[in-house]
């Protein structure tokens, strides 16, 4: 298997970032609402929510949902504050 350089670098980064235990997407999604609320209030993360944070660093799909959700909730919070 020959790999192109950029893809090889991306793959190596993913491989080296792999942990023995990683949260699944379903588990992340189940805690995402709580995670965003905690983030928006600036409360320290519990161990369970720290796992969500780590998952978001390596899962583009869940991170994308997190950003949209955070933005939507921030917009509503701003509205309530008016």
């Amino acid at each position: 298997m020959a790999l192109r350089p950029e893809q090889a670098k991306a793959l190596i980064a993913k491989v080296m970032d792999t942990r023995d235990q990683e949260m699944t997407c379903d588990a992340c999604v189940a805690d995402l609402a709580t995670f965003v609320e905690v983030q928006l209030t600036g409360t320290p993360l519990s161990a369970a929510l720290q796992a969500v944070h780590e998952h978001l660093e390596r899962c583009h799909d869940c991170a994308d949902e997190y950003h949209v959700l955070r933005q939507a909730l921030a917009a509503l919070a701003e509205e309530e504050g008016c």
Partner: protein
Amino acid sequence: MRAPRENASWIRDLRACGPVQAEALTDLRGLLLRGLTKSFQARGDTDQAFVEDVVQQALVHILDHLDQFQGRSRFPTWAMAIAVRLAMSALRRKRWQDVSLESMRAPIEGAPAWDRDDTTSPAQHAEQHAIVATLSRLIDETLTEKQWLALTAELGGMPLEEIARRMGSNVNAVYKLLHDARQQLKHGLATAGYTAEDVRSAFP
């Protein structure tokens, strides 16, 4: 101005019949519409009709799954998370609808052109070459065809949900497939004598 509903009131009112439920639905619809409209305006890849359609689907889904709300967040947050999930899923499906898994392999595989750039020393370049050669061998020797197909699609940016759809699987199973593949490659590199520090030095 009416005080915001507490979680229990949302559940009670949405489970009610007649005007009580209708009012709660109107309030929830308004919240979801305002939040999603703001959020997607910032992204610029949807229009208002898309947002309204997603909100409608979300309301149906939320009413069908009220018993799954565990109260770990505020109810509107939980409901918004559902709407966001439906929206992102629809966007991913549309974005990737004409792309096959097989077509994702071509940009990944190919003759390596490891020309050294000015920021890489000759020794570092040689080390990069050696690590990638080992990685390529490990891919051939340890990964299944299915693992490699999923890995190339992920590297190409295809969402796991779309990989899963094409494999007739689900997101969790694909995540596990990819996690196992990454672990096998990491273990293979370690067995071949490359420490995490070696790899970090070669690819800073």
